[in-house]
């Protein structure tokens, strides 16, 4: 029987939904693709038609949730008087808040040596491109050029912050908030330094 596009999309969406629940109930380490198939009421092999591996499935879920976080940030809007540090912090904070249900899974994935943000999978590369485009626009708003160096710097800081956040056991993740603030201020200062160097040379 031919499967329509709509059906495919619906199945994919169901798989991701089941995965989200299984991660919350069982965690990354114990969840299997067979569990996902069973929960989505499809054949075990069918899952692999949509996602080549458990890791790819996780990244797809992460990407979806990430998009929700970014959408929240865009919906909030930027106050014209808000400084760059506040805008960047707000963006990352909305991302981490959206990712909250996946925190433990991300921690376990990191423990296996797989920082999601540093993967070269098509899903993550697309996520990275979209996010950095957003950040570049933000930097331009504040008169900063979005050089490849700056954006790479930012992305690496964000990847590190994600690891830090995922492993944060402090009450209400306040250690991450302090770290994030410090990291963003340092990044913003690096942009200022770049401007200073350019103007003094």
């Amino acid at each position, binding site marked *: 029987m031919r499967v329509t596009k709509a059906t495919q999309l619906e199945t994919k969406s169901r798989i991701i939904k089941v995965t989200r629940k299984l991660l919350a109930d069982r965690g990354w380490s114990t969840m299997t693709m067979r569990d996902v198939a069973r929960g989505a009421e499809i054949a075990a092999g069918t899952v692999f038609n949509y996602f080549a591996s458990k890791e790819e499935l996780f990244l797809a879920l992460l990407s979806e949730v990430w998009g929700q976080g970014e959408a929240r940030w865009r919906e909030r809007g930027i106050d014209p008087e808000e400084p760059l540090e506040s805008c960047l912090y707000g963006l990352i*904070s909305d991302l981490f808040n959206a990712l909250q249900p996946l925190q433990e899974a991300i921690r376990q994935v990191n423990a296996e040596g797989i920082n999601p943000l540093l993967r070269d999978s098509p899903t993550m590369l697309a996520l990275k491109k979209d996010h950095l485009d957003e950040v570049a626009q933000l930097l331009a708003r504040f008169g900063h050029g979005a050089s490849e160096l700056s954006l790479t710097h930012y992305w690496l800081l964000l990847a590190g912050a994600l690891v830090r956040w995922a492993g944060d056991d402090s009450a209400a993740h306040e250690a991450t908030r302090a770290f994030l603030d410090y990291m963003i*201020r340092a990044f913003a200062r690096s942009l200022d330094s770049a401007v200073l160097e350019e103007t003094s040379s």
Partner: protein
Amino acid sequence: MNAAIEQWCSSLPEDLEEGSPPVDFSALGLVKQEGAKSIPTGAWTRFGILANLQARIALGYAAWWCRTRFVDEEAAQGRLNEQHLKAALRMLDRLGYLRGLMAKAGQALAATPRLMPEAFAEILGRLHFQAPPMHEALVRDQIRAELGAEPERIFRSFSRAPAAAASLGQVHRAVLPSGEAVAVKVQYPAMATTVRADFRNLLAITAPLRLRRDWHAVRRQLEDARDMIERETDYRREAGWMEKARATLADMSEVVIPEVFPAYSTERILTTRWLEGDHIDAYLAKNPSQEARNRVGAILYRSSFRLTHRGRLWYGDSHPGNYLFLHDGRLGILDFGCCRPLEGEEWALYIEWFRAFREGGERWKKAMLSGAAFEPGEKVEEEHLRLIDAYGAWTMEYLSYDGVFDFGDTASLDRGLEIMTECSRRGYIRCHPLNTWISRHILGLRALVWKLKARIPAKAIADEEEPEELRNAE
């Protein structure tokens, strides 16, 4: 180092030469606060720490300030010392992010009455308040984490910009859904951790001091300071002290302590009723009469004694920013983060010191040595003994004076500052932790009342408000 501070430092001359013209600091933009709302007060807080702790403990240039002020008074007076400003700027940069123990100790370097040239005091005061405030997104995140939702969903209105700086965070003005105007104090995240980390750094920096024979006493003071600041990171504790203070001073209608709203308060967020009034500079700018100044000075002292002697609560943060002169003549007292309940042995010790002061003679001498953290029978250098004696006499002079004591007497204040400076210069820094608290409050209050130029029958007030134990003994 912060790029702006690096620029400022590099624009200052390397060596101060005799007769060199003063630097035009306004041109450097040092007193311009970009994007930061003006904070209404200088900081005389923790003058007790400055007086009691060796300035080499991470505050190296504080002792330099003192030496410059008193050893080369004429040269320092009217001249701006660029070298020290450079050191201050560098230190500010290090303190700029971490607002823990180091930042709070750094606050002691800001304006103190007559300890340093006024121009420096003003610049230091403003520099001190340039420690980075929390931006809007961080405040939002803190409130979301602590109260469960973003400010716009909790309050009817919430000011985006801070209304004031607080010791470990900042204050925003808001309106509750029920219509009350409130002050929402939001703490910077992870302050308790920062305090502990800063204390470890402080201990490392103070390594040379461990060779001193009184290191154990100094360490005890540092640990007490750390514990005190860690306590300040728990706003629920502060809320408890505010309620205790309100109950203790309930029959003093001239005093207002803001009501706490527990439903909007947590360990890191403290919501209290908003008080409208003037801080001391704005109050004095209205040129109040001597009678008004005397009245408010008397309220300050009476409330202080009553809180201590009836409430057994020591208010340790008597700096100008914590007092509001309300338009109806009442006095508002804010910020109860730095309080020390006097219980058990400490209360007994406090009563003993008070009793000893009244009795005088050997009992008082013994009490002063105890206050300086000397064990009975421990050898004391003659000069140290002289300074302990002088300091004790100075701090209690207004309680020995029958009649109206003129707190505006600058010569009297200078005497005290000279004693403390001499102690600092000689490295006489040991002090019983309880006495550190007492000193901090007494000095802070004294500096405040000096600024008011109030004349108060302090001894009579103290007698009226004496502890029950002393009243019963009579």
